């Protein structure tokens, strides 16, 4: 479903070349919930940006749902992002001047979905995240956890194949973080594929599959599986 083959990303300034990703290889299957961990500056966000087509890569091949992303132009990438990917950001990134309903409506409008269908989906997603009664509220009238749930509703409204979450609980206290994580797990159980970048080992452990990025490369994606095996063997 998502395949990255030898993806490299080089940031070039006048003086320095920085290799954010090097020969990065990853295969993600439908319905997976993957936690991406790694130290600061290891390339997690670069990986997420490339996976979400937010920035181009320097070398390699990235196939998303059978589409070769490297061959797309800017408009095609924007359309593909809109159709296939739902984003959840650390800072929620809700638009402060729009109420919850209008915030969730943003990606649906870009897709050209008709008003009645938009309404149906928005109401359904708000219901799903437990904020149906607050559609007319502005983001600043909500708590951080509620705002992140709105952001999740926005990501879900487009019925994406992928949810890409960048530190989705990074700005939340532990109670709210747990609620958001439970919501993501529920969404995953409902069939969505989720890739979540996180610093939090607790959260990472809750994801069925862990991958670690170190120095721009995939360090050990079997770590979690290995640990599980050891546990199963009673070690």
């Amino acid at each position, binding site marked *: 479903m998502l395949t990255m083959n030898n993806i490299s990303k080089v940031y070039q300034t006048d003086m320095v070349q920085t290799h954010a990703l090097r020969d990065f290889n990853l295969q993600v299957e439908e319905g997976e919930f993957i936690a991406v961990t790694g130290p600061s500056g290891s390339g997690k*966000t670069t990986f997420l940006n490339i996976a979400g087509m937010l920035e181009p890569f320097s070398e390699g091949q990235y196939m998303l749902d059978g589409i070769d992303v490297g061959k797309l132009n800017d408009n095609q990438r*924007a359309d593909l992002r809109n159709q296939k990917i739902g984003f959840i*950001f*650390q*800072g929620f990134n809700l638009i402060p*001047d729009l*109420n919850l309903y209008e915030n969730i409506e943003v990606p649906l409008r*870009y897709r050209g979905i008709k008003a009645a269908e938009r309404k149906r989906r928005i109401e359904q997603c708000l219901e799903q995240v437990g904020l149906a009664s607050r559609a007319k509220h502005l983001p600043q009238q909500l708590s951080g956890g509620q705002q992140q749930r709105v952001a999740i509703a*926005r990501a879900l409204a487009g019925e994406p194949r992928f949810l890409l979450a960048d530190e989705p609980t990074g700005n939340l206290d532990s109670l709210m973080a747990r609620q958001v994580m439970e919501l993501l797990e529920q969404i995953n159980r409902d069939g969505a594929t989720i890739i979540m970048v996180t610093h939090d080992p607790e959260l990472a452990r809750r994801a069925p599959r862990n991958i670690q990025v170190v120095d721009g490369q995939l360090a050990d994606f079997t770590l979690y599986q290995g640990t599980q095996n050891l546990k199963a063997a009673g070690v």
Partner: protein
Amino acid sequence: MLEIKPIFHALCRSKVGAILLLIQIAITTAIVSNAAFIIQDRVSYLSQETGYPEQDIFVFNVMMFGKDVSPSQQYELDEAMLRQIPGVVDAAYSSNTPLSGSGSSSDFSLKPAPEESKSARTSYMFIDEHGINTYGVKLIAGRNYTEDEVIVTDNYDELSKVTVVTKTLLDELFPDGNGLGQTVYFGDIPMKIIGVIDLMKGPWLKDSRPDNVALLPFIKPGTNARFVVRTEPGQRQSVMNRVEEAMLKNYNKRVISRIRGLDDDKESYMAEDTLMMRMLIVLITILVLVTALGIFGLTLFNISKRTKQIGTRRALGARKSAIISYFLVENAMICIVGLVIGVIAAVYLGQLLMQHFSIAQLDISYVLATALAVFVMSLLAVLAPAKRAANISPSIATRTI
């Protein structure tokens, strides 16, 4: 895809910047449309047809201090000499200069004063039979007066018995079109209209009757005199350069002064209007520039304030064109409200100006044209910042700013 409704809601929620901008747009529209109308009014005033080939005519003054010649004889000799100068078409003694803001006027009536009758305010000029040709005006009916009809005298005991008038004056006094050959009265002095001139402006272009002019064949030579000379096209400057020397050679106990083109006199007379027009042009240019800069600046400010929002929109699937259209639509919405207020204010301001400064009624087409121009200008002002916004990388959405 136009996001009119969410943009409108967003504007309603943070309206200070938008309100300031729409006030600026309204003020610009109100002032610029009125200023543009006044400018156009001045331009047509300044460039109006006067009936004269102004570029070919010049005027000069003579002040005689020598007492050993008769002014009337000397002036005749001078005129004859002037007409002989190569490049000169004709020359004449003229009591005053048209278009200069200085002259004489009186009511010309259908009955002698003090009898009550129809009358018309008329500026008049004493000039000999060369006057019509020298001023280059067109005689469209009747005839010019003859040399014998020109009265040369030291007093006003006897005045002309004939006159040549402009068509405008003739039509005002005789709307039935039968004025030629009729008698009009200059005070109680009867004068027969023997000729009609097509167009000939008087000394005051701002007068209520600038086109009512009568030429009277009368000369009262004194120590001060004014001559008018028409040259072949392109010859005026060279004749002007030689005229003082030629006049002094003819008789040297006198001073030749103020040798100037007819258009120079007109320009001095119109200097205030020209200045006002230029100031208005500067004013509206500055106003439009300030408004354009305001829109440009506000959009740049909005973009820097909303960098993350724009990146998020891009991440959520907005094409670059959607970002550009977002800012264009947002600006257009502010602009349209500003323009509606501006158009109403312009009409109101126009009425105030009409009441207090006797300016013609504002033509609504100027308001609409200004509104359209301001709208286009505002879209152009917002285009460059909007393109810049569209180039914001969607990856900004994942950065912590």
